[in-house]
């Protein structure tokens, strides 16, 4: 049996992978347009930015994700940036991961419409990658100018018009952390929320959602967006069609397929369990 399987050019795993790819490609090519409801979690975030966040105030955005996570996090970031720019907020981008400068440039090129009428140094700045993890986050809370001398492009922080009155945690109205890691959220809860009471907004991968939800439930963050699903909901709310909405049909089909596999797997398991074991041997 094992030898027969070895000779097969295409095994069960490859069949499952192929079906999965088909279930994603077909809805991407021919969108069905399945309805998308807005969850209370996403609506809470939208309502906070719309109604509670003071207009024109500075917002810190930490881009802590690598290229692989772009598909899940970039649509969220783009939708939130659109909303923040609509409220004339001043955006200070920073990254505590080395991939930050790349993902920031990719964000600017894929969401060029958001930055088209905005001026660097007046409406937004990018401080670049800052090494040091949690101590670096703490240092930024104490003083940006004391932490980093120049922005990502070598311009002195003091020469950036927007940064004239922005230096420490108290100067910010909100921190948006878009992270593919779990620890990043804890750094900001400990170094920005707990000592300074600065509101935090989490943008996370779906898989990280359950780990950071306790922070949101405890009121340590104003809300969280998780994965493409939240991105699609936020894109609907701010009226900007992006990757989040584009991928929802594919997500639904892929999940349905995996659900079918789980049901079939369980049926096979129960069917083989009910068979009596052969004497002195293992069940086949």
């Amino acid at each position: 049996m094992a030898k027969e399987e070895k000779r097969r050019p295409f095994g069960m795993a490859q069949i499952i992978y192929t079906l999965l790819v088909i279930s994603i490609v077909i809805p991407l090519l021919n969108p069905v347009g399945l309805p998308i409801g807005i969850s209370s979690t996403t609506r809470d975030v939208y309502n906070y930015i719309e109604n509670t966040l003071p207009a024109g105030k500075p917002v810190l955005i930490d881009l802590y994700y690598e290229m692989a996570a772009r598909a899940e996090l970039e649509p969220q970031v783009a939708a939130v940036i659109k909303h923040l720019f609509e409220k004339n907020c001043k955006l200070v981008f920073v990254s505590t991961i080395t991939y930050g400068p790349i993902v920031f440039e990719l964000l600017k090129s894929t969401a060029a419409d958001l930055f088209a009428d905005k001026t660097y140094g007046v409406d937004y700045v990018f401080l670049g990658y800052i090494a040091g993890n949690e101590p670096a986050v703490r240092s930024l809370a104490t003083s940006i100018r004391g932490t980093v001398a120049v922005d990502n492009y070598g311009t002195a922080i003091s020469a950036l018009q927007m940064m004239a009155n922005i230096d420490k945690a108290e100067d910010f109205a909100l921190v948006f952390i878009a992270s593919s890691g779990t620890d990043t959220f804890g750094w900001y809860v400990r170094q920005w929320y707990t000592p300074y009471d600065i509101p935090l907004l989490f943008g996370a991968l779906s898989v990280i959602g359950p780990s950071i939800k306790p922070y949101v439930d405890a009121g340590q963050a104003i809300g969280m967006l998780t994965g493409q699903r939240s991105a699609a909901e936020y894109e609907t709310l701010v009226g900007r069609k992006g990757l989040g909405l584009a991928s929802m049909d594919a997500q639904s089909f892929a999940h349905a397929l995996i659900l079918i596999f789980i049901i079939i797997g369980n049926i096979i398991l129960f069917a083989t369990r009910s068979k009596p074991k052969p004497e002195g041997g293992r069940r086949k």
Partner: protein
Amino acid sequence: MIELIGGWLAAVMIVWIYSFVYKDNVLYRLAEHLFVGTAAGYSIALSLDSLNRTAFGQMVKGVEYWHLIIPILLGLTFFFKYSKKYYWVARYGVGVNVAVGAALALRAAPMANIIKQINAAVLPLWVAGDPLKTFNNWLMILITLGGLTYFIFTFFPKTEGKAGPVRIAYKALVTIGIYGMMVGFGYLFANTIMTRVGFLIGIILQYLQPRFDATLVAMILAIIAIAFAVLKKK
């Protein structure tokens, strides 16, 4: 032109990396090694740039920043790890690094990670006019207590003889804790699938270009990768 070459290079690497789904092959390993090497080189370059902007760039601003020489020197002690004779010097850098990290985290951790979380678990057991909220609060409290009880490894009620109220309560809480955790794991698993499928969608969307030649080249690359694996198998 450089962007075009970069785009095609990325496309080639993605196809070769995904060829692992069929089977391990030489093109997959080539792409993997190229990625690891490039990522390591990029991280070193970015780290040096960060050092320049956060330390040297500050020091030239004035004498009030000269104290930054201390962390720079402590950081340099890390390289003594490569010396058999003076490897112990590296311990000073590591020691300070660990101490600073721990001190900063511990300063706010009791409030952020313990007290606030306990506060959040203190919920009203009766919410007038909202039975769903009441049910949710009961569920939350019972599962929290059940989960905590499951991880108590130093106390077990006696198992012999007639079951007393302590043993019954203990068993009930542990059972609730187990079921609560199972639901949690299910939630986590579903989210894991969503993330992985999301990554795949992101990659596939890069290939669903309106240009036919791009898709054709991608398919040829995939066939080459699979052919390598099949030939090697034979």
